[in-house]
């Protein structure tokens, strides 16, 4: 029954990506290549982040929240944003509409993130006899991450690809983008300082991801109006 549990957690972690791809018009317009390119960019970004973390960060023995270390981690987290910028703007995509571009880039990015961060622990851990809720919670976190990444990609495309935006909305766009990109720091703050346990953190992430998705959706629609 342990492989069963692994299968369950795997479809929870990776299923939504496949579902997203097949359900939305992404599959009709054959945007797979864009997703793959975005995944490759994520890999490169992850490597750069790893090198930077290894060089600049001090490993603390205890789970103490050190503001300087966390600030440094947040700085390095912005490399993520830079990677996303590169994927959105510099890669030559075929003629796909902006709508689909950010979705496919976000999807590829989130899928690569899930695979790199969650597949190995899942394979090693979920197959054992001992039952824990950890892997189900990890899967839910992957779902939240997918929504976050797509929202971030949407906001990114708004920031860098769309030229005429209503002036009032620009700061809002930037604020939302900053919030989403610093989510890792926020969750680690919650875990260490406030002492929240994993289920609570995952719940918080899910709710926040839905809220952010709604906000970025609204922003996208609002910014689309003038071009019509």
């Amino acid at each position: 029954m342990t492989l069963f549990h692994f299968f369950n957690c795997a479809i929870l972690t990776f299923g939504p990506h496949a579902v997203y791809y097949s359900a939305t018009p992404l599959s009709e317009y054959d945007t797979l290549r864009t997703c793959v390119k975005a995944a490759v960019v994520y890999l490169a970004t992850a490597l750069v982040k790893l090198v930077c973390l290894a060089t600049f960060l001090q490993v603390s023995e205890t789970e103490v929240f050190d503001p300087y270390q966390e600030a440094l981690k947040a700085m390095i987290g912005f490399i993520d944003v830079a990677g996303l910028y590169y994927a959105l703007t510099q890669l030559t995509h075929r003629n796909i509409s902006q709508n689909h571009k950010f979705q496919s880039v976000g999807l590829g990015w989130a899928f690569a993130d899930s695979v790199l961060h969650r597949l190995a622990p899942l394979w090693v851990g979920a197959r054992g006899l001992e039952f824990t809720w950890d892997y189900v919670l990890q899967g839910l976190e992957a779902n939240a991450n997918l929504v976050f990444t797509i929202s971030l990609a949407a906001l990114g495309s708004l920031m860098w690809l769309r030229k005429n935006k209503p002036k009032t909305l620009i700061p809002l766009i930037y604020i939302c983008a900053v919030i989403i990109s610093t989510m890792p720091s926020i969750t680690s703050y919650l875990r260490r300082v406030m002492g929240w346990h994993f289920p609570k953190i995952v719940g918080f992430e899910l709710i926040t991801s839905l809220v952010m998705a709604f906000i970025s959706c609204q922003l996208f629609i609002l910014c689309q109006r003038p071009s019509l």
Partner: protein
Amino acid sequence: MADEKKSKPRHRTMVFESIYPVLALMLILVACVDLCDAATVVDVYRLIQYDISGVPFGSRFSSLNHHAASLSFQPGADLSRSVLILPLRELDIGFVQDYISQKQSLGGLLILLPQMFRPGNVGGGSNGLISETEGFRKLLAQLEKLLVHGNIPFPVYFAFENEETDAMLADVKKNDALGQQATATTGGYKLVISVSEPKKIASPTITNIQGWLPGSRADGDSNQLPTIAVVASYDTFGAAPALSVGSDSNGSGVVALLEVARLFSILYSNPKTRGRYNLLFALTSGGPYNYEGTQKWLKSLDQRMRESIDYAICLNSVGSWDNELLIHVSKPPDNVNVKQIFQGFSNVAEDLGFQVALKHKKINISNSRVAWEHEQFSRLRVTAATLSELSTPPELLEDAGSLSDTRQFVNEDGIIKGVKLVAESLARHIYGHQGKDIRIFADDSSLAVNPFYVRSWLDLLSQTPRVAPFLSKNEPLIMALKKELEDYTAEVSVQHESLEGSFTFYDSTKASLNIYQVASVTFDLLLLLVLGSYLIVLFSFLVITTRGLDDLISLFRRPPSRKVKMA
């Protein structure tokens, strides 16, 4: 063109063939379900498994892979695929007896012992719990007797209570009380011990260590001097061989022998105080098995040496007594030698403030059971006596290092008094001071009995299980005892014999128990259902929001327009 076509299928088969090893590797990886990440791992000790002349005794199996059950199970429930967890505190001997005698099938038995019986646990409980401790000891003795002499067709393990086992047991009891016995479909705890099947120990060896301290030869050969022997058997036997430390039986005897050897080595090191008797110290093995080691050692002695033995004193359990020690003999009490020995000992005892009593037990030659160690000497016509606190001889394979025989129940004052008794009596005999009121080993002299020595050796022996078939020839303990005797005596020889007779032993005495908390199959199915519906809902939601409801419906209906076109 034909070549191209041929090369394409060949290329394809090559691709397929190269996939096979990858597939095989994947299958192997999938098959390796790792069982080593349990939340709780506990050290457990297996019940002994042995045969006497082919008749099996003890627990016959060792590996375990079943769900846990407790005593609160519903009556009539099938426990053949469960491991019953029995804490000693709630043990009912009658229940265990019924289970074994009626040969009811059980997946396994795990007995939880209180921490006080752990070999390294020296700190005794508070005085208020003495009666409780006595009750536990009696219960444990009864349980051991039952298990050691029964033939048990399921694995039996002993473990010590700790927080994790307590928590698990409480959980299991709660579930059992609700009637949800743990099986594959209802979840619960799974206990796994993965060891190989127990194998016979090929040729178990027993090792006797003897130390020879020669007396001063006036003129002539020292071999013509009379000899006095002090003997103690050092090995044990108990229900759990890995826990059988035998602090009293016979750790106390070994410690007493070593201290007597140390005192006499001081005396004999100076030629002026060397007596006209040789001293022979022997640490024998094979004690629980009718003192086989003693017999073999005696037979291996040179006949002249054996004949020169004036008398032998065997030490057996001198660690927990208060007022009276017993001297057991096999020759009748009116025998001259016996009278002399007893007189000497009782004089010294009177001086030291306690009593010795004489007990006579005749040897029955036709019975192969050897009750005391001195009987092996008597069978070879050597005068011998056993000094012990026990009034009746222990039964075969009992009281030779049981689970309740741990360090905290041994009183080192008893051992010290015993050492004084033996040393003074021997010294008065050797130096001819019988009846005189002289204390050679007085308390504040250089020949005083060293309580720290006694304590440190007793502590060491109380943490070393010493069941003879599981001791190798070069076991560290045997080397340590040999080195100790080498320090105190002139000549040390080690004799290895194989344990013949009707005993056969099986290995696998210690293992690690993995406790897993498992979820039931129904839970997994439920989770699959929930996830499946979640994905379907997600799919529908995305289709509706991005393509519209019509698209969703059209996914399920075959488009009629194509058929019209084909027609």
